[in-house]
C-alpha cells in the first residue's frame, strides 16, 4: 500500500495549490481526485482575482496578498496560466450606488489599497463602449485575470516535478481512522492509500468527504451561469468591468434595491464582463441556490443578457455562442474554512471560498502548507477556523 505524508482530496484550484505548496516543503504528497484536474468548479468559473468584491477586513487583506503571490507564481510555474494585472472597473448605475461606492472606497483606501473613484467622463475614456448615462465608477489597480483551468495545471505540473503523485479518476469512498481516532487510510474505488494527514479541498463536495469522518461542513452549492460571446476583434472592454451592484448582490446583509426588471431581480443577476485571450468575452454574473444543477437555464441567460445590454449596448451586435454554469462552495459567513479540525486530528479543511477560490488559491495553499509543517501562518487566520461552526458533531 502506498503511503504519503499528506493526501489532498480534490484537484480543483485549491487542492492543486495546496498540493503544490506541500511538495515545495519537501513532503510526500498525493493529490486524489474523483474526476479530472479542474473538472469541477475550477473549470466552470470566471477568470479573475478581485479585491473589490470583498468587504474591508481580513477578506481583503488575504485577497490582496494572494494577488501579490500570483505575480511570483507567474514566474515560478512553467505552465503559462495567462496571468495579467489588468485592473478592473466597477460601474455605478445611479447616484445612490455612487454614494455607497464612495464610502466603500474611502474605507479601502484608508487600509492602503490602490483604488479610486472615476467620474462619468473618465469612465468613457477607460471604456468607450459603456452606456453614456452611468453615474461613475471605481478603478482598482490590483485586480488581475488569468485562466483558472491552466492555473490548476500549472500547480499540478510544477508539483509533479517536485514529486507530487496525482491520482485522478480515483473516487474517495471511505476514510479510515485508528483506535485513537487519528487518520489512517484513504480508500478509493481504485486502491487504498496510507496517510496521517488529509486536506479536504473538495469544494462544494467537501461536506461529503467530511461526512466520512463524521463532520458536518455548512457548505452549500451556489450556482452561477456565464455567457460566452462569439469571438470579436472589437475591444468591447479592456479588462473586467462589473456593476457595483455585483458586490451588493453577493452579500445578503446589504439591503440595496436596484432599479431592475423583475427577471433580473428574480435571478439575482448583476452585470460582469471580462475579455479572454481567445477574444471571446465572458458575461455574467448570477448567483442562485439550485443544488448541484448546472444546466444553463434560458431565463437566467436572458436576464444576464438583458442586464449586460444596460451597461454595454454594443453587445446587441454580438452573438452569444454558449453558456456554462458552475457551483460555488458557499458558506453562510462568506469566509473560507482553512484549519485543522480539532475533533479529528490530521483532518484539515481548505474549502468554502465561494467565488474567491481562484483568487485565494495561492495564499490558501501557502498557509495550509504552513499549518501542516507547524510554521506560523502569514496571517492570523483564527477567523477561518472550522471551530466557528458549533454544530459540528464529531464521532
Amino acid at each position, binding site marked *: 500500500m502506498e503511503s504519503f505524508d499528506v493526501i489532498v482530496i480534490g484537484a480543483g484550484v485549491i487542492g492543486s495549490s495546496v498540493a503544490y505548496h506541500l511538495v515545495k516543503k519537501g513532503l510526500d504528497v498525493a493529490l486524489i481526485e474523483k474526476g479530472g484536474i479542474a473538472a469541477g468548479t475550477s473549470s466552470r468559473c470566471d477568470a479573475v482575482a478581485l479585491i473589490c468584491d470583498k468587504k474591508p477586513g481580513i477578506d481583503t487583506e488575504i485577497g490582496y496578498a494572494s494577488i501579490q503571490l500570483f505575480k511570483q507564481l507567474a514566474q515560478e510555474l512553467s505552465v503559462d496560466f495567462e496571468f495579467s494585472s489588468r485592473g478592473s472597473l466597477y460601474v455605478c448605475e445611479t447616484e445612490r450606488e455612487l454614494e455607497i461606492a464612495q464610502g466603500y472606497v474611502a474605507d479601502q483606501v484608508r487600509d492602503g489599497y490602490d483604488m479610486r473613484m472615476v467620474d462619468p467622463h473618465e469612465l468613457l475614456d477607460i471604456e468607450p463602449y459603456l452606456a453614456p448615462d452611468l453615474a461613475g465608477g471605481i478603478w482598482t489597480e490590483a485586480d488581475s485575470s488569468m485562466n483558472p483551468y491552466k492555473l490548476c495545471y500549472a500547480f499540478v505540473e510544477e508539483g509533479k516535478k517536485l514529486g507530487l503523485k496525482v491520482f485522478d479518476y480515483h473516487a474517495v469512498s471511505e476514510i479510515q481512522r485508528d483506535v485513537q481516532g487519528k487518520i489512517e487510510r484513504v480508500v478509493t474505488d481504485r486502491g487504498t492509500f496510507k496517510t496521517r494527514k488529509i486536506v479536504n479541498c473538495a469544494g462544494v463536495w467537501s461536506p461529503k468527504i467530511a461526512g466520512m469522518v463524521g463532520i458536518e461542513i455548512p457548505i452549500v452549492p451556489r450556482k452561477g451561469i456565464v455567457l460566452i460571446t*462569439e*469571438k*470579436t*476583434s*472589437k*475591444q468591447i472592454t479592456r479588462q473586467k468591468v462589473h456593476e457595483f451592484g455585483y458586490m451588493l448582490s453577493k452579500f445578503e446583509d446589504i439591503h440595496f434595491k436596484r432599479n431592475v426588471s423583475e427577471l433580473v431581480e428574480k435571478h439575482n443577476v448583476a452585470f460582469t464582463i471580462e475579455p479572454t*485571450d*481567445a*477574444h471571446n468575452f465572458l458575461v455574467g454574473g448570477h448567483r442562485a441556490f439550485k443544488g448541484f444543477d448546472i444546466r444553463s437555464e434560458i431565463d437566467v441567460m436572458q436576464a444576464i443578457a438583458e442586464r449586460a445590454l444596460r451597461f454595454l449596448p454594443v453587445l446587441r*451586435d*454580438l*452573438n452569444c*455562442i454558449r453558456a456554462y454554469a458552475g457551483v460555488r462552495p458557499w458558506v453562510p459567513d462568506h469566509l473560507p474554512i482553512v484549519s485543522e479540525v480539532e475533533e479529528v486530528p490530521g483532518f484539515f479543511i481548505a474549502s468554502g471560498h465561494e467565488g474567491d477560490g481562484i483568487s485565494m488559491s495561492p495564499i490558501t495553499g501557502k498557509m495550509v502548507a504552513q499549518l501542516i509543517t507547524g510554521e506560523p501562518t502569514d496571517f492570523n487566520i483564527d477567523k477561518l477556523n472550522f471551530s466557528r461552526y458549533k454544530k459540528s458533531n464529531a464521532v
Partner: protein
Amino acid sequence: MKSMRVQEHPILGNSEKKEAVTIYFDGKPYTAYTGDTVASALLASGVRTLRKHEETASPRGIYCNIGHCFECRVQLNGSETVRACLTTVADGMYVTSLTLPKGASI
C-alpha cells in the same frame, strides 16, 4: 478563369436560369443568383477567404457548408454576425469580413 458554376450536369441536367443580383463583400461588388448562399456566390466568384482568424490572422473560408462549423462567419449589413453558408443572397446585400483591415480603428 474557368467558370466555377456547374452549368451542365449529366444527371441533374442544366442549371435553371436564375435572376442575377449584386452583393458586396468588403466593398467590392459580385454577381450572385437568387437561391445562392453568400458562401456559394463568393466561391463562384473565386473568393475563398471570408475572414482572418481573430488571434492568428490566418485566412479562413468555408469548411462544412451546412452551418455546423461556424468557420464561414461574416458580418451582414454592418452589424449581425451570420454564417455565410446559411445566408441566402439578396440584391444589394452588404457583407464584410469580420476582421478589421490593418490600421483601422473601431
